[in-house]
C-alpha cells in the first residue's frame, strides 16, 4: 500500500515544469561540485595530517597548472588523452556499463599507430596520418568492443574484464616493443622505430597545444550529439537505465552495447595515436602513463556528460601537471596527486547515492511508500 501525498499547489503547470527542470539540472551540477569540494576538504585534512599546508598545495596547483603560458602548455598536453580516455568510460556508462580499462585501448592504439607509421612510408603524409589514426581507433575499438560483447553474450563482468584486459594490453605492448617491433637504435628505452617527421602531429596555431586537444574536444561534441540528439543515443539511455524496458521495446540492446563500447575504445585508441604522433614519436613504455585511469575519474566527475568532460579534464590535467612542482617545493612524493584523485573518486562514488533522494532537488519525491 502506498501513501500518496496531495500534489503541492504550484502556480501554473508551466511554472511547475520550469521548477522541476531547474531542480533536476541543479541536482546534476551541485552534487558533483559538492563532492569535488568535499574531496578538496578531505585531501586538505590529509595534508594537515602530514604537516603540510593545504593552501600552499592548491597555490602550487594553480602555479603549476594554470598560471603561465608554460604551465598551460603542460596542462593542455595532458588534456587530449584525458578527454579521450574519459569518453571510453562515459560512452559505455550510458548503457550502464562500468568500463575501467581505457588504459589498454590507449596503449594498443599507440602501438597500432606507431606500427602503421612504419608501413605508410611513401604515401602522402595526410593519408599516412589518417591511416595511423584509423588503425589506432580500430584496435582500441576492437579491444573495448570485445569487452562489451563478452558482457552481452556471455555475461562476463565488464569492469573486471576491462581491467584485466588492460594488463594484457600493456603486456602486449611490452612484448612487441621489446621484441618484433623494437627499433635496434633504441637502447635504453625499447621503442618502435620513430615515425617520420612528416607524420608527426604539430601544435595548433596560437595555442601551445597539439591538435589532439582539438580532436578530443570535437570527439566530445560529437559524442554529446550522439547521446542527446539522436535516436540511437535515446535508445542507449533507455537500455542503460533499464535493460528490461529496452528489451520489451524491441531495442537492439546487444548492438547498442557493443557499438558504444567499441566507440569508447576507438576514442581511447585515438588518444593513444596522439600520444605517439604528437608527443613521444614512437610507441614505448611512456604510453603507460595512467591516463586511462585518470580518465575514469574525469568521466565520473562529469557525470558521463561529454560536454562536461572537457572542463573537468582541464582541471585534473592541471593537477597532474603540477605534480612535479609539488614534489620539488613541498617535499611530497609525486603520488600525492594520486592520493588526491583517489579521495575525490571515493567521494564521487558515495555521492551517487544522493541522486533522487534529496527533496530540494526532487519536488515530486514521495515521502513514504
Amino acid at each position, binding site marked *: 500500500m*502506498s501513501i500518496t501525498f496531495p500534489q503541492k499547489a504550484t502556480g501554473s503547470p508551466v511554472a511547475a515544469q520550469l521548477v522541476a527542470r531547474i531542480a533536476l539540472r541543479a541536482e546534476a551540477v551541485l552534487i558533483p561540485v559538492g563532492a569535488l569540494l568535499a574531496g578538496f576538504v578531505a585531501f586538505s585534512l590529509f595534508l594537515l595530517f602530514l604537516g603540510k599546508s593545504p593552501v600552499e598545495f592548491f597555490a602550487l596547483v594553480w602555479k603549476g597548472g594554470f598560471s603561465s603560458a608554460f604551465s598551460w602548455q603542460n596542462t593542455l598536453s595532458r588534456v587530449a588523452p584525458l578527454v579521450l580516455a574519459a569518453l571510453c568510460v562515459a560512452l559505455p556508462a550510458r548503457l550502464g556499463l562500468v568500463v575501467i580499462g581505457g588504459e589498454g585501448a590507449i596503449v594498443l592504439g599507440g602501438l597500432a599507430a606507431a606500427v602503421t607509421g612504419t608501413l605508410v612510408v611513401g604515401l602522402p603524409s595526410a593519408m599516412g596520418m589518417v591511416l595511423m589514426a584509423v588503425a589506432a581507433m580500430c584496435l582500441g575499438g576492437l579491444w573495448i568492443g570485445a569487452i562489451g560483447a563478452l558482457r552481452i553474450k556471455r555475461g562476463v563482468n565488464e569492469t573486471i574484464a576491462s581491467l584485466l584486459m588492460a594488463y594484457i594490453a600493456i603486456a602486449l605492448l611490452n612484448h612487441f616493443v621489446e621484441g618484433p617491433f623494437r627499433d635496434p637504435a633504441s637502447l635504453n628505452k625499447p621503442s618502435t622505430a620513430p615515425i617520420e617527421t612528416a607524420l608527426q602531429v604539430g601544435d595548433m596555431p596560437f595555442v601551445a597545444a597539439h591538435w589532439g586537444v582539438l580532436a578530443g574536444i570535437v570527439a566530445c561534441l560529437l559524442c554529446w550529439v550522439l547521446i542527446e540528439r539522436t*535516436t*540511437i543515443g535515446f*535508445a542507449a539511455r533507455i537500455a542503460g537505465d*533499464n535493460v528490461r*524496458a529496452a528489451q*520489451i521495446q*524491441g531495442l537492439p540492446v546487444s548492438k547498442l552495447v557493443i557499438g558504444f563500447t567499441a566507440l569508447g575504445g576507438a576514442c581511447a585508441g585515438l588518444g593513444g595515436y596522439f600520444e605517439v604522433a604528437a608527443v613521444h614519436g614512437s610507441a614505448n613504455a611512456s604510453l603507460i602513463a595512467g591516463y586511462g585511469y585518470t580518465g575514469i575519474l574525469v568521466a565520473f566527475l562529469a557525470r558521463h556528460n561529454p560536454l562536461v568532460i572537457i572542463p573537468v579534464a582541464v582541471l585534473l590535467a592541471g593537477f597532474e601537471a603540477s605534480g612535479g612542482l609539488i614534489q620539488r617545493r613541498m617535499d611530497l612524493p609525486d603520488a600525492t596527486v594520486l592520493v588526491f584523485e583517489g579521495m575525490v573518486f571515493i567521494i564521487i562514488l558515495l555521492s551517487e547515492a544522493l541522486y533522487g533522494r534529496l527533496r530540494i532537488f526532487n519536488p*515530486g519525491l514521495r515521502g513514504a511508500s
Partner: protein
Amino acid sequence: MIHTCENGAISVQTLHTTMRFGAFTALDDVSIDIPAGTFHALLGENGAGKSTLVKCMMGFYNATSGELLVKGREARMTDPKVAQKLGLGMVYQHFTLVPSLTGAENLVISRADTPGLIDWRRETRALDAFMTKMPFHVPLDQPVSRLAAGEKQKLEIIKQLYLGNRFLILDEPTSVLTPAEADEVLGHVRALTQAGEITVLMITHKFREVSAFADDVSILRRGKYVGGGSVADMSIEDMSRAMMGEAPVISTRSRRDTVKQPLLTMNGIKARDRTGLKPIEIDDVTLHSGEILGIAGISGNGQMELMEILTGQRRMEQGDIRVNGAQYGATRAEARAHAIRYLPEEPLRNACAPRMSVAENIAFRMFDAGKDGKTAFWNDSGAIARNAATLIKAFNVKTSSPAARIASLSGGNVQRAVLGRELTGDVKALIVSNPCFGLDFAAVSSIRDRLVEARNQGTAILLISEDLDEIMELSDRILVMSEGRIAYETPIATANVEQIGQYMAGHH
C-alpha cells in the same frame, strides 16, 4: 512491565489512533477492539490505511496520536522490538523465509536469542516437541524452496507461534495461494483462534474469506473507520458499501460484439523456466482480434516466462510464434509492423527507465518513428513534448511536470502513463501481465476500462493475470496455466471458478 504470555491469545485495542505524514492524514481517529482469541478481518481498498494501522501496531510507525492497549494495558510501540516482546507478530504478504534453508533452520535462526554455536541435535528435539503441539504440520527437514506456497505460508505462521507471538497480523496471507490452499491455511488459523491460542488480525480484500473465517470485521476507507462489527451481522453488500463508499465507482464497461480473427499463434513452444530446471511448453494458443484472452494461474507456473517468450526476452528451444502468418521474433521492427504492444507487470521496474523523465518514458514507442515507416536518426524533441502533452492529458497522468522523473509518480500514474504509451495509435495486439497489481480501486477501474475499450476497438488482448477475479471480469476466453503448460481452456460463458481453481492448483 508486561511479560509475553507464553500461552493463550492476547487482546489488542487501538484507541483514537491518528497518523499524519506532513499535511496528509493516513489514519484518522481509528479505534478497533480485537478481543483475545478472535479472528478479526481488516477490510479496505489500497490506500485506505490498513498497512499504516498495522505498522503503527507493530512499531514501524509512531502514531501521531492515540493509544494502543495490549492485554488491556497501554503499550508504547516505539520500536518493532517492543511489539515482538509483547507478543505481536506479523506475517507478510510475501514470504520472508530463507529459501535455501530448511524449515527447522529458518525457525531457529529467526529467534532473537539464537546462540553463536547451534546444537542442532538439541534444537531438533525441541522443535519436534514444539511441533507436536501444533495443529498442522509442515516438513521441517526440507529446504523451504521445495515447499508449496501453502506450506510456506503455514511455516510462516508456525514461525510466529515458535517465536512466542500470540497476536498475529496476517497481511493478505492468501494472495499467493490457491483457493484450496487458502481455505486450508485459514481453517487452521481459525482453529487456533477458537482454541484460544492466538488472536488474529487479517488484512484482506476478499469478502469470501471474511465471511467464511472471521469473527469480526473492521472496514477502513480513506484513513477512517467506516464500519464493522460481527461478521454474522453483516452482509457482503454491507461490507462492500462501506469499503467503496456511498457512490461506488461502477464499471460501465459494455462489451461490443467484435469480429474475431486469428492474429497471433504460438505453436509447439518449448523453453526453460527461470530456474532452468523445468520446461515451459505451449502447444497451441491462438489470440484473436477483438478478444481478451485471459491466462489464469498461480504465480510461478510459467506466466512470467510466457511473457518473456512473447517479448523476445527468453529464448525458445523449439516452436514458433506467428503473427498474421509471418514468423515473429519481437524485434522493434516486427512489433512496429504488426502493431504489437506490451504492458509487463510492475511497469516502473519492467517497462520504464526510472531516471528518465515522464515525457521521455512515454516516447519509447515513437521516438525513432520517422516518416514512411523508416527509423529516424535525429531526436525530435518537439514531437516528444507534443506526444507527452497529449498522452498525459488523454490518460489523466498526474505529474508535477513532464520533465519530472517517472520514478517520482505514484503506481497508478506510472501504469496509466505506460498504458497510454502502449495504446497509442492503431494497436493490433496488446500483451498484458498483471496490469492492476498494487493499484488502488479507482486506478484499477480506469485501467480495466481502457483494456475493454481497446478490445471493443478490435485489439487482441492477451491478459496474463494472477488475479482470478480480474480474469473472470475481463476475459472472453480463459486459459489456465499450471506447471508451465496450458492445462485448461474455457470460454467465459461456461467458466466456473471452482473448476478453474482446481486446474490452477494442478488437481487435474
